[in-house]
C-alpha cells in the first residue's frame, strides 16, 4: 500500500509546467496567489544540463534523452474507428522524431522556435467561409465536398479581441520579427500591417536573412505580395522581458530545430523555464514539484468541482494536492487523457454509423503539422551555402501570408484557406546526418540501391557544402475538424502505472491535400520569378492517397474552446463549461484547445493568447470566490 501524503491547499494548481502553465503560474503568483506547478520531469538548468552534452545527435537528437520516456507513457494511433490502434513504441528518425516534452519548459525545450499569429480569418473560418459561399445560417457545417463530417466552428473571440493577449505573450517571450507584411519593419510602409495587423511590433529585430530569403523577398514583392521575415521565438538580441527576466541572444550554433530538435544552452529559445517561471519563483508564491506524475483529478460530482490533483512521486508515494482552481497546461493528448481518466467534462463518443458524435472531451482533433507527403513544387538556385550546423531552427527566412486564409480568390477551388509560404531558412538548423531529408530508405527511382552502396555513398560526399540549393514548397491548406478524428482512451495499452494511454483516431482531411494541389501554379510562379531552374511538380498526392502514421507534434483541437458547450470543452476564458452560464473551477490552454488552425506553422503562438485569457479568467474566478460568489461561476 502506498503512503498517501496530503499537501496543503493552495489557490491554483498548474498541471504540467510548460509554456501555458508558465504564463498562468507567473501571472497569478505576481497577484499574490499561492500557486503549485507539477511536472513529470525535472527542472532543467540549461548551463548544467545542456551545455556540455547537447551537441550529440545520437543521444539528444535521436535518443531523446531530454524528453519524455516512452516506457513511462505513450499514445496509440489509428486512422479510423474500425481499426486497432498501434502504440508508438519508439522515437525514430526520420519520420517521428518529435518527442513529448519532459520537465519544466516541456516540449518548447526542443522545438524549432517558429511563431506566427493566426490571422482574423482563422478565428472565424466557418462563418466567413459561409459568408463567401452565400450559405445561411453562418453556423451551417461545411459541405462534405470540402470536409466530410465537418465539425468546424468559430472561436469564441475574434482576432481583434485576442490581439492584446498576443501582445502580452510577445512581451513575455521576446519574439523576433518585423511588422507582419513589412520587409522594412515599418508600421507605415505600403506593405505593413497588412495581415494580420499588429498594434505593436515584435519586440526584437529578426534574424539576419539568408541570400535565398532575400531572393524570395525580392521576387514576391515584385509580384505584389507582402513578404516579411519569419517570426521566431529565438531571441536575436539581449532582452529583458515584461517580467524582468533577462534573456541571452541566440549564438547560432546550429544545433537547434529542424530535424533533430535540440535544447538551447543559452536560453535564447523561448521557453517557460527561461521566460516566465523564474519570475514566478522569485515571488515566493510559487512552488515547483518535479518528477511527479499526475494520474487523477478528484472530481466532486455533487458540486461539479475539481477538489484535488493526485500524483505519484518518484518513490511511488501518492500526493493529494487540493486547490481552489486547477489549470491544465499538459500537452495535447495528456490534457484530454487526465480528464477522461478522472471523469472531468463530457467524454466525446463517435458514432461511425451516423458519422456524428456527442460530447466534447477529445472532439475535433486536427494535426497542425503538415503531412509528410503532398504535391510538391521544387527547383534549384545556383547559389550555395553551408548546410552543416549553422544558423537556428526558425530564422533566416521570409514569409508571405497572401496565399493563406481568404487573402486570395478561391473561386472554383475545392478547399478553404491556404498556406503560409516561406523560403530561405538557415540551411543548417540542426544536424541531419541520419535524416538525409527523408531518412534511410530502400531502392527507389532516385536511389536504385536505396541508401546502400557506392553510388549512394558518393551522393553524401560534401553534402553539407552545397554549391546549389533546392527551394520548394508543398503547400497544404488547413486540416479541418471532423467528427471522425478524435482522442479517447485506449482499451489495450497502459502507462507504467496501469492507467490506459490515450488513443488518437486520425487521418488527414481532404482540405489539406486539395490546398496543396490548388496552390501548385502560384508556387511555380514564385519559383520562376526567383530564377529557379528545373522547376518540377512532383509527388502528386490526392486526398486519401497517404495516411497518417505518426502522432504529429502540433495536435490542434481535441479539447477546444468555443461559445457553445455542445462542441467546446472550454469557454472564451478557457474555463470548463457545465452549461452556457455555469462552469467548473478548472481551466486549460494549449494548442489542443485551438478551435481551428490556419497553416501558420506554430499553433503554439495561437495558444499563447489563451494562456493569458486563462490567467485572467482564473483571477476573475478567485475574486468571485473571495466575494462569496458561486463555485460554478463562469468567468465573463
Amino acid at each position: 500500500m502506498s503512503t498517501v501524503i496530503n499537501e496543503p491547499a493552495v489557490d491554483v494548481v498548474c498541471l504540467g509546467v510548460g509554456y501555458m502553465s508558465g504564463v498562468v503560474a507567473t501571472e497569478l503568483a505576481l497577484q499574490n496567489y499561492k500557486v503549485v506547478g507539477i511536472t513529470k520531469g525535472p527542472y532543467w538548468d540549461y548551463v548544467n544540463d545542456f551545455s556540455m552534452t547537447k551537441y550529440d545527435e545520437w543521444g539528444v537528437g535521436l535518443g531523446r534523452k531530454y524528453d519524455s520516456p516512452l516506457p513511462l507513457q505513450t499514445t496509440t494511433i489509428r486512422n479510423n474507428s474500425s481499426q486497432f490502434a498501434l502504440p508508438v513504441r519508439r522515437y525514430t528518425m526520420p519520420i517521428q522524431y518529435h518527442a513529448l516534452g519532459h520537465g519544466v519548459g516541456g516540449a518548447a525545450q526542443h522545438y524549432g522556435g517558429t511563431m506566427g499569429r493566426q490571422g482574423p480569418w482563422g478565428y472565424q473560418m466557418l462563418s466567413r467561409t459561409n459568408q463567401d459561399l452565400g450559405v445561411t445560417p453562418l453556423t451551417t457545417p461545411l459541405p462534405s465536398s470540402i470536409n466530410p463530417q465537418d465539425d468546424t466552428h468559430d472561436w469564441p473571440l475574434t482576432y481583434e479581441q485576442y490581439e492584446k493577449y498576443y501582445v502580452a505573450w510577445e512581451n513575455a517571450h521576446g519574439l523576433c520579427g518585423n511588422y507582419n507584411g513589412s520587409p522594412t519593419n515599418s508600421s507605415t510602409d505600403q506593405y505593413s500591417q497588412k495581415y494580420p495587423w499588429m498594434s505593436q511590433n515584435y519586440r526584437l529585430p529578426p534574424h539576419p536573412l539568408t541570400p535565398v530569403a532575400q531572393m524570395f523577398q525580392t521576387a514576391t514583392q515584385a509580384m505584389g505580395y507582402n513578404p516579411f521575415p519569419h517570426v521566431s521565438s529565438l531571441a536575436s538580441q539581449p532582452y529583458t522581458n515584461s517580467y524582468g527576466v533577462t534573456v541571452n541572444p541566440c549564438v547560432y550554433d546550429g544545433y537547434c530545430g529542424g530535424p533533430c530538435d535540440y535544447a538551447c544552452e543559452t536560453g535564447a529559445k523561448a521557453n517557460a523555464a527561461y521566460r516566465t517561471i523564474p519570475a514566478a519563483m522569485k515571488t515566493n508564491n510559487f512552488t515547483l514539484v518535479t518528477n511527479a506524475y499526475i494520474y487523477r483529478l478528484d472530481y466532486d460530482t455533487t458540486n461539479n468541482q475539481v477538489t484535488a490533483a493526485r500524483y505519484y512521486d518518484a518513490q511511488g508515494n501518492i500526493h493529494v494536492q487540493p486547490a481552489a482552481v486547477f489549470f491544465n497546461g499538459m500537452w495535447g493528448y495528456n490534457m484530454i487523457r487526465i480528464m477522461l481518466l478522472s471523469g472531468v467534462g463530457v467524454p466525446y463518443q463517435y458514432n461511425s454509423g451516423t458519422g456524428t458524435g456527442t460530447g466534447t472531451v477529445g472532439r475535433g482533433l486536427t494535426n497542425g503539422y503538415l503531412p509528410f507527403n503532398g504535391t510538391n513544387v521544387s527547383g534549384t538556385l545556383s547559389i550555395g551555402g553551408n548546410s552543416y550546423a549553422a544558423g537556428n531552427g526558425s530564422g533566416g527566412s521570409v514569409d508571405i501570408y497572401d496565399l493563406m486564409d481568404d487573402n486570395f480568390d478561391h473561386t472554383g477551388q475545392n478547399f478553404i484557406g491556404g498556406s503560409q509560404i516561406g523560403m530561405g531558412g538557415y540551411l543548417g538548423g540542426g544536424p541531419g546526418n541520419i535524416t538525409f531529408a527523408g531518412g534511410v530508405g530502400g531502392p527507389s527511382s532516385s536511389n536504385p540501391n536505396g541508401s546502400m552502396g557506392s553510388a549512394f555513398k558518393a551522393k553524401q560526399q560534401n553534402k553539407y557544402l552545397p554549391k546549389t540549393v533546392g527551394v520548394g514548397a508543398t503547400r497544404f491548406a488547413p486540416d479541418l475538424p471532423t467528427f471522425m478524428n478524435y482522442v479517447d482512451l485506449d482499451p489495450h495499452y497502459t502507462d507504467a502505472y496501469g492507467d490506459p494511454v490515450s488513443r488518437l483516431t486520425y487521418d488527414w482531411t481532404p482540405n489539406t491535400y486539395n490546398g496543396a494541389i490548388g496552390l501548385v501554379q502560384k508556387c511555380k510562379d514564385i519559383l520562376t520569378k526567383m530564377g529557379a531552374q528545373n522547376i518540377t511538380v512532383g509527388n502528386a498526392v490526392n486526398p486519401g492517397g497517404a495516411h497518417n502514421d505518426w502522432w504529429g507534434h502540433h495536435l490542434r483541437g481535441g479539447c477546444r474552446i468555443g461559445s457553445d458547450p455542445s462542441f467546446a470543452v472550454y469557454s472564451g476564458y478557457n474555463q470548463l463549461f457545465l452549461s452556457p452560464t455555469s462552469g467548473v473551477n478548472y481551466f486549460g490552454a494549449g494548442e489542443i484547445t485551438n478551435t481551428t488552425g490556419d497553416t501558420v506553422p506554430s499553433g503554439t503562438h495561437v495558444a499563447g493568447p489563451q494562456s493569458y485569457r486563462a490567467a485572467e479568467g482564473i483571477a476573475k474566478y478567485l475574486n468571485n470566490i473571495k466575494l462569496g460568489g458561486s463555485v460554478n461561476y463562469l468567468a465573463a
Partner: protein
Amino acid sequence: MVSQTRREFLKLGLAAAASAAAASGIEIPLLGNQNSNLQNQLDSANTQVTNLKTKLNTVTGFVSLNISEQSLVEAVVETIIPSDSTGPGAKEAGVIYFIDRALAGDYGQSANMFMDAPHVLPNIPAATGISTTLMVNPSLSWAFLLAPGGGYSVAGGGGSSAPKAYTGNNATTPKIPITANPRVGSGINYQYWMNLREFWRAGLVAFSGTAKSYSNKAYGGNFETLSSTNQLQALKDLWSNAPKTTYATSDDLTGFSNILPSDFAYELTFMTWAGFLMDPLYGGNQNMVGWDYVGFNGVNFGNFYGEGFNQQTLMVATTPTKLKPASLAQYQQAATGGT
C-alpha cells in the same frame, strides 16, 4: 591576458582592455611570469593526456556481437558504405564498433521504447494454415468511463465488453484492420516483442549463416562469401521483402517468419549510417572520417582550431566553407581547460 601592474590599469583607457577581453571566451588569468613553471607542467600534462587518448581511440574489442555476428555485420556494413575511390567507408569509420556498443546499450535494450503487450504486427501476414488469434479484452474497469451524473459508458465510441479476436492475414481471412501502411522508420512500425538486441540476433540468423537462412538459400552461401554484387543484391532483397515470411510448401520459409525483412533492412542501413556519422564518443565515425566525408562540422562553429570564422557569416554565405570537424570530447576538453 598580459598583465600590467595594478597601479597602471586604471590609466589604460578601459576601452582597450574591454575590447581585448571581449574576443576571448572564458579565461583563467595567469599572474605573469612567476607562474611559467606551472604553465610548463600544465603543457606537459596535457600532452600526456592527448597521447593516452590517441591510444584509447583505437577501439578493437566487442562487447555484444558474437563471433559469427561480427563477421556478418562487418561484411554488411562494408557493403552499405564501401571503402572506395571517393573516400573511406564503414571499415575505416569503425561502424561495427558503434553498432556493437549500441546493441549493448540503450539502443539494444530498447530502453526508451514502449515494449508492452499486445504485439500486433502490422505487416506480417500469418502463415497459411495457422490461425494466430490475438485476444484482447476490453472489459477492464478503466475501459469504462465515468459519465457525469453517474453510470458508465464504454470507451471509444461504444461496443461490447466481450473479448475481441484479431486474426492474421491469410488467403481466406481479411487483413487485420490496423493503421494502414505504417512506413518503415515510423514510430508505430516496430511492434515486435523483442528488444532491438534480440531483433538483430534473430534478423542476422535469418539473413545468413544457417541452411535455412536467406543468403544461403537464395545465393548458396554465407553472406561474407558472396560476391560484392550479390551482397548488395541480398540487402536489396531484404528491402523488397523477397525472403518469405509465410510458406506455401515446407521449404519456403526462412528465418524471417516473425520479422519483416524490410524492417530488418531498415535497422541495418540506419545503424550503419549512424555508425558513420554520429559523434566518435559512441565508437563509430573514428577520427571523424565520416564527418570529413560529408563536410559536417561537428562542434566546430568556425573557430575551434583558430580558423577565425564565425557562425554569423557562415550561415548566410553563398559559397560553402569546409571546416575541420571537432568532436564532443574535444569540445568538452577545451571547455574545461584541457587542450
